[in-house]
């Protein structure tokens, strides 16, 4: 079923009886060419691009819960490509380009809204660092503009520019960045993959791998054993848990990141805004709620909830730049479990087991990377060669010394 304005008009006149589920719920077959473990955004994007770009259709996506119930539905929906290393910035810019054509590609309204992201700076050295970042962005083909205080004032007149501790001196703006409706991303990719014959199997937990003589030949699941030529793990947040079943220890710790939504307010934040001196980033959803987040809680956890000190820290960050939100009530908060890697960068690579592939370690950067992660993982699975944009996301980079440590923090995952 293709969506069109004509179809919407027709359905609205006939009581909306013609809409059907957008993907099937098949039982697993005995054998697939490729099994993707994890039906999150990245797994579904991988299945979509494998079937649409690489002509492989005999694929199963196995999801422990339901589509859209994991991290793809627990993030703050921000997309951007404002990194600065040659190993990661071209990848994120590629992702941004895929976001820009996503709705057309999927024939699905994912509500891609390029409302711009503004990273505030509060001191002269920080401005210099942002100039450098902006130049790195421009060199990768992305867009970047440095705004002085008046430039920021034009966009966000209500900020606390004269804050005694962290006065706002300006900001680095990426106009093409923005937000996307995250559930729609999961549903759109699921629909795209399903329409090309991919089996999306929900409520099917992988409980083990079939590995013999260093070759992975399939998985054990709660719905029985399934054979495959290639098994592609894509379960960021639970990577260590799943890969330990294949006998692997990863350079990853699991941490919780909290996100928050305020009560609905009239539109007043036009884009995405980040505090440069603490942990606070905010956008306003189409329903009017302020969607914001901050820093990790900082300790290993698989619980999808955090603790109160971080709530206080995030809200203080918000108050430091926009005291106007002080009387808005917090409506709800939740936590998502992150794969925090040892250098703050992800992995898209094969493993030492033949036929077993790994995609994970996305830290806070998973959602914005969804399309490029899917495309690059699909490329690796289809051709057995790393995609040029993701060739440095290797599992052995800590042994070879080619870390991608944008923050320069070293092997301390809770600081990335």
């Amino acid at each position: 079923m293709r969506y069109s304005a004509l179809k919407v008009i027709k359905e609205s006149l006939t009581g909306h009886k013609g809409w059907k589920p957008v993907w099937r719920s098949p039982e697993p077959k005995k054998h697939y060419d490729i099994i993707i473990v994890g039906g999150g955004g990245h797994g579904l994007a991988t299945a979509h691009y494998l079937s649409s770009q690489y002509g492989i259709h005999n694929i199963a996506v196995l999801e422990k819960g339901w589509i859209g119930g994991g991290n793809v539905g627990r993030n703050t929906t921000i997309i951007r490509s404002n990194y600065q290393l040659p190993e990661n910035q071209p990848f994120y810019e590629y992702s941004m380009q895929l976001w820009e054509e996503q709705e057309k590609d999927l024939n699905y309204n994912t509500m891609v809204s390029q409302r711009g992201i503004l990273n505030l700076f509060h001191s002269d050295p920080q401005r210099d660092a942002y100039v450098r970042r902006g130049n790195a962005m421009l060199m990768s083909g992305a867009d970047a503009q440095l705004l002085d205080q008046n430039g920021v004032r034009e966009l966000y007149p209500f900020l606390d520019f004269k804050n005694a501790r962290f006065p706002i001196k300006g900001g680095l703006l990426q106009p093409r960045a923005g937000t996307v409706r995250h559930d729609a991303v999961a549903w759109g990719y699921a629909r795209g993959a399903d329409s090309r014959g991919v089996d999306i199997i929900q409520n099917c937990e992988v409980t083990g791998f079939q590995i013999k003589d260093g070759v992975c030949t399939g998985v054990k699941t709660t719905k029985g054993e399934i054979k495959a030529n290639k098994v592609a793990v894509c379960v960021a947040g639970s990577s260590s848990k799943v890969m330990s079943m294949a006998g692997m220890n990863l350079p990853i710790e699991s941490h919780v990141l909290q996100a928050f939504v305020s009560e609905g307010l009239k539109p007043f934040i036009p884009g995405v805004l980040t505090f440069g001196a603490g942990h606070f980033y905010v956008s306003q959803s189409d329903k009017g709620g302020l969607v914001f987040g901050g820093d990790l809680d900082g300790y290993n956890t698989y619980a999808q909830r955090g603790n109160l000190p971080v709530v206080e820290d995030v809200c203080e960050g918000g108050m430091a730049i926009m005291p106007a939100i002080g009387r808005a009530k917090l409506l709800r908060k939740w936590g998502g479990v992150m794969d925090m890697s040892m250098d703050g960068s992800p992995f898209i690579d094969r493993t030492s087991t033949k036929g077993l592939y790994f995609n994970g370690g996305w830290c806070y950067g998973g959602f914005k990377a969804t399309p490029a992660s899917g495309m690059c993982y699909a490329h690796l699975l289809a051709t057995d060669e790393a995609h040029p944009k993701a060739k440095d996301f290797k599992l052995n980079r800590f042994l070879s010394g080619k870390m991608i440590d944008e923050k320069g923090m070293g092997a301390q995952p809770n600081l990335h």
Partner: protein
Amino acid sequence: MIINHPLLGPRDSSEFVYLGDASLMNRPQWKGEEADLVKTEETIKQYHDYLYLRNNPAGEHQELWYHEQGDRSWLVVTRNTTTHNISQVQMAKDVALKTLREK
């Protein structure tokens, strides 16, 4: 989270800094000059595993917390990573000495 400090009693976890898996106390030993170190592939592999790989279990986890806003002692905390329930708190020094004695 409340961490029951063996010397100071129950303290809020926000007084502490978290380092990570308590296995970070068990740095691989090497003999001879440091120059030999870079030559030995096995030692490099051991250091790589020590520094970069983690068990990262869902469940009981032994981890290092530093009481920065207090007595600046290092603690080994046994905590469940799915419930945040803390079952044991020891002085890191005691744990290290015990490991040494058992060697």
